[in-house]
């Protein structure tokens, strides 16, 4: 018997369905103590109770019928519907750049899962094209579904797969690469690809959406068009993140992947360049450069791939009263690297010092980044900072904590030598540490201030 006929049902609800020989997708009539209900039996979402049977009424509404209210039920068997988005063959336009779209799953490519009642990554890139046909006006697009995972489930092995796919695509003479990706760890993947794929001849643009593509207001389509424009017509051959610049469907921003950070859980313009300006402002027909220095597109350049990663690296977020036992556990579990996220200029409490020293002696590579997100680590201002450095923690300048984590894993994938690791960590590959912080690199405006309110009202945000 096909196991799928009772999708998601368990416990009492499953017993009742079996008792009346009713299965998912049947048209059912249910007599209950609360009256008569009829409709199509739907799968039950996994993390809900086992006491209700879900019906889709003819009006399109879904309801749950509590099994204890059921007096009797009967049903008419119907074929299981096929949920499918038409996969259109993508047309070719002579003269337009060739772009490879690599799919990884995530919100930019997702649709509803009846079983869990939640969004699942399910659009293949060609399905994605079917919903954003405008892409063919921008470029000739080739698609490949490399991964189908939620952004939060991405890890080092996925970075390596992607890096190799990029190499393969670049060697095939592609004009640019777009990678669709969930937004939760977009900045981590961006950093990993920056380190793993160097000497880039063409742009590599990571794109996601904050509001899922199953909603008419989704930012997925516009972000994708912007990303395709940046990959096909842009001159910046770096790993970039392309997301909405504002909450309006207006322009997108191109961020250097090593400097971008997701700063809001759901807002459209969640991605911001930290400690620097974005690279460019982008619309469907224009790329307006903000930074004038960048790695220019040059198809004669040969891509260099360093697909290594050691995931025995962890992050420790300092909090007042932190106990050394946490660090002891890290040492005992055989970790090779620690990225500290320190308070203020990069501080941790004195109580930790002995354990820090112990970790250092054990050969664990320790680096300091900031909870403040903006600014530089500076362990010279206060004595405590000097104490920390003396115990083996190396300051990471203005490298973002997540970027430092990725870089340390990547570095340890290549060598265990402390000096070599330090050299790799502190030698920027693409501005993960910058030498200076311009005045307009730190902007967190506060609402309620007259001039800010005026700015918001005048400039559509």
């Amino acid at each position, binding site marked *: 018997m096909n196991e799928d006929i009772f999708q998601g049902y368990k416990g009492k609800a499953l017993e009742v369905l079996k008792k009346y020989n009713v299965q998912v997708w049947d048209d059912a009539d249910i007599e209950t103590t609360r009256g008569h209900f009829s409709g199509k039996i739907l799968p039950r979402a996994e993390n809900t109770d086992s006491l209700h049977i879900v019906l889709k009424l003819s009006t399109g*509404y*879904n309801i*749950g019928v509590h099994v204890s209210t059921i007096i009797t039920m009967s049903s008419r068997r119907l074929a299981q519907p096929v*949920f499918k988005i038409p996969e259109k063959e993508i047309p070719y336009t002579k003269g337009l750049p060739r772009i490879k779209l690599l799919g990884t799953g995530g919100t930019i490519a997702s649709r509803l899962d009846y079983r869990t009642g939640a969004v699942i990554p399910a659009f293949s890139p060609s399905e994605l094209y079917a919903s954003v046909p405008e892409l063919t006006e921008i470029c000739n697009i080739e698609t490949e579904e490399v991964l189908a995972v939620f952004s939060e489930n991405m890890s080092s092995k996925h970075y390596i797969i992607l890096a190799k796919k990029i190499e393969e695509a670049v060697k095939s003479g592609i004009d640019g690469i777009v990678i669709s990706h969930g937004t939760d760890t977009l900045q981590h993947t961006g950093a990993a690809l920056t380190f793993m794929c160097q000497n880039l001849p063409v742009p590599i643009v990571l794109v996601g959406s904050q509001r899922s593509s199953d909603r008419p207001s989704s930012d997925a389509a516009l972000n994708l068009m912007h990303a395709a424009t940046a990959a096909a017509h842009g001159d910046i051959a770096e790993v970039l993140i392309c997301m909405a610049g504002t909450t309006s*469907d207006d322009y997108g921003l191109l961020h250097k992947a090593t400097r971008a950070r997701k700063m809001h859980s759901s807002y459209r313009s969640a991605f911001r360049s930290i400690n620097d300006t974005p690279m460019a402002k982008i619309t469907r027909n224009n790329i307006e450069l903000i930074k004038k220095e960048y790695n220019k597109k040059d198809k004669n350049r040969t891509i260099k791939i360093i697909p290594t990663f050691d995931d025995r690296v962890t992050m420790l977020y300092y909090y007042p009263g932190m106990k050394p036992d946490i660090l002891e556990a890290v040492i005992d579990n055989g970790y090779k690297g620690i990225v500290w996220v320190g308070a203020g200029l990069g501080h941790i409490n004195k109580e930790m010092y002995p354990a820090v020293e112990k970790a250092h002696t054990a050969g664990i590579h320790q680096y300091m980044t900031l909870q403040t997100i903006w600014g530089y680590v500076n362990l010279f201002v206060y004595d405590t900072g000097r104490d920390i450095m003396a115990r083996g923690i190396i300051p990471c300048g203005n490298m973002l904590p997540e970027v430092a984590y990725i870089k340390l894993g990547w570095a340890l994938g290549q060598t265990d030598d402390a000096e070599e690791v330090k050299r790799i960590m502190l030698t920027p590959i693409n501005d993960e540490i910058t030498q200076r912080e311009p005045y307009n690199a730190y902007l967190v405006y506060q609402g309620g201030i007259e001039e800010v309110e005026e700015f918001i009202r005048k400039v559509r945000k």
Partner: protein
Amino acid sequence: MKSIDPKENFEASKKSIGYVDLKNAQPKDYQRIGFSVGLEVHQQLLTKEKLFCRCPAGIYQKPDEYDAELLRHMRPTLSELGTYDDSALMEFKTKKKIIYRISNTTACTYDIDDTPPFPINREALRIALEIALACKMNIVSETHIIRKPYLDGSIPSGFQCTALLGIEGEIELKNKKIRLAQLSIEEDSCREISDEGHTRIFSVDRMGIPMVEIVTYPDILHPTEVMEVSNYIRFLNRSTGKVRTGIGTGRQDVNVSCKGGTRIEIKGVAHTKWLPALSHNECFRQWALLAIKEKLQKRVKKENWKMQSVQLNSKDFPTAYAPIKKAFQQNKHIIAVNLPYFAGLLSHFTQPDKAFYDEYVHRLKVIACFSVPNMICSEDMDEQLEVDFIQKIRQELHSKEEDAQIIFWGPENNISTALQVIEERSLMAFDGVPKETRQSFSDGTTAFERVLPSSDRMYPDTDTLPITIDDKLIEEIKQQLPQSVSEIKQQLKDWKIPEDCHAYILSRNYFTHIQHIVDNLHYTPKFIGVFFGQKLKHLHGQYRHIPFAIQRLYELFAFLEKENIDKGIAYKMLKQLFIHPAKDFEAILDLLDFKRINEDKIVKQIPLIADKYKAIDDKKSNIDKKNSIMGQLKKMSLGNINLSKLAKHILP
């Protein structure tokens, strides 16, 4: 060439379909065309906060009062079955820029779709369940939040979150029962501020206010019944005392069909008094479209029908008709379309003062964003086009006698959409009544609003969990249910309160206040009912802008009873209470210059005045005499002695 006189043709077609106006229509007319109506009544709930976020509900800002504007576009999304909804595609074709105006006090990031929903407002859920139970519905044991897509921009996420709470209820009218199909709880949409060309502006303040939607079966068979049902549901909602009142807090959609027609939804009717005319006219419009279908099918097969079009230039097609002349000057594209076999149909009656041609006008305006006037036809009622001009176009298009022509003009990028719309609407004429939603006008006519979305478009919200509605909650709410509207009506009747007072008492939900006074004080129900239904109503009309705390009426009557003051002074006191809401009753009496005088003392005045009266003129009748004495004693008597009692003392 034999040409059609559009006006004559309009009148003749109106007669041939048997149109009767609302005033003169008989029940048999409605039976003949199969008049059938169902209502969808939307009512805002009186909650502190919105349905899925914690913004305050019910606060509105003026159109230019906003802290920020943002711009969005809506895209159709594929259903699970891989298809697009027709209405969604239509909205996408309009290529509208949607602008939202937000004020920080009334909207948050949820309202503009930048944050997922918060848990449903329990206060709203409870009120909605109370209404569902008052509608005698079957309550579901678990409700799921469902998304209903709207791509017109009225909801920033592109869908309305709604959840079904009850099905299969009923209400009892004077002579029949009307079945209720369902009740759902939903979030209100944004308020449209303007819609011109390719830009539509919304205010986000109303977005997310909790509402219920009550849907009736199409059991309504007469226009006056439409109003009766609408009022009944309104009174029922208000009987809970937990719904919002005032302009825009209750709106209804009317679903109309005629025999052989289709369900047409007239959206957002703001006033119940418009309902009879709207439903009457819509039913006859469908009847007219069926007549047009029949004529057309006799002339040509749908699959063989093909329209032709040509672009006009000012050299070959000169005209004195000002709008086209101007369009030529502005280098707009001017297109003439030939509609084979449509002669006599464009000027065919559809609604009062509206012909079949208007169906094209409205669709072009909505879908192709055409501003008016941007088109004209060969059967123009005002005959503004020169005969030569039309003749030339006909030659150019190789038109036959039985053909009709539409000429339209606009910017180049709107032309292909416009041609598509004209072709679509023409082909729809072969099938009768196209499925659509229509907007209403105060004159009782309607116009195309959008393609009717199908129920397939509904899909579960992915950001929320199902909500259980257990027996305990239902029992708790059942204990507090208000009396039913039909019971209240019967009680008012039993109390001999005149029927013209009922609507006011029911719509303001004053029955419980009347009952409270009647139960606890010693006044007759009829006096109190009439006092509410006439005196209070009058003052409410006079001092519309002053809020009045209704519980003060109980306090007023309790005060009069305690102080042994006659109720005759109540109206004068109430009037002062409207003007001076903060004053206590003694102070109000002072304002009225009231002095407590013993009843006997007043009665003793009667012979004195009567003597004086005699001295002046003894020829007048007893009645005049009584009135004169009453007049002189009135001020002194008011509040001290019942005036009819006084009259008996004068003329025993």
